[in-house]
């Protein structure tokens, strides 16, 4: 199985935060995004992580992986 997660505005836009999918050999992170959202590519302002590390969209996925998609981070205070 693969765990998929969305955060922040992506979770609101797509209406879900977490789901599980069966692993398919040869799947990359970008493929999961396209399959779940119906989009043809990863928008520039969507980041992805595999097992809690940032990763490029072309990263291959393996059974048991946790794959997350989220917008650019905005931690800290507003103070620039």
């Amino acid at each position, binding site marked *: 199985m693969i765990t998929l*997660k969305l*955060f*922040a*505005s992506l979770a609101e836009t797509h209406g879900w935060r977490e789901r599980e999918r069966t692993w398919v050999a040869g799947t990359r992170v970008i493929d999961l995004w396209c399959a779940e959202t119906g989009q043809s590519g990863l928008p*520039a*302002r969507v*980041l*992805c*992580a595999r097992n*809690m*590390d*940032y*990763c*490029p969209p072309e990263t291959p996925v393996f059974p048991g992986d946790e794959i*997350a998609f*989220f*917008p*650019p*981070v*905005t*931690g*800290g*205070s*507003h*103070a620039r």
Partner: protein
Amino acid sequence: MPVSVRAAPFEPYAEVASHQHAVFGASGQFGATAVFVGTMRDFNEGDSVQGMTLEHYPGMTERHLETICATASGQWPLLETLVIHRVGDISPGEAIVLVVVWSAHRQAAFEACREIMEALKSQAPFWKKERLATGTRWVTGNTAGYPASKS
């Protein structure tokens, strides 16, 4: 080198004092302490902000904060670091983030504190949603592409 993500308000200076006492006691081992506190402002981009909600990625957030502190400790001679970050519903005037660095050296304390704060802003997965009089809005970051993983 603790990092902590908190859903409840915290008093940053009480945290600094108590952590320092717990780690160093009354000893004069460190000479320099640099502290940064980010506080929620009631104004952002010209709008009055009534509050905000901070979301995070449990597990990944803590891990990246730990990596950021470990990286700084490898780069400067630090004796201890402390990072506390709020999540959940936050009101203006409340502390959002606390970064503390203890070192024997002034320059190391200043530089590491600033570097940890900059790395936190660009790498740690937190997302802000502001509550305005007219509704809510997500604060958009400036980051394009994915940050290089440090782990």
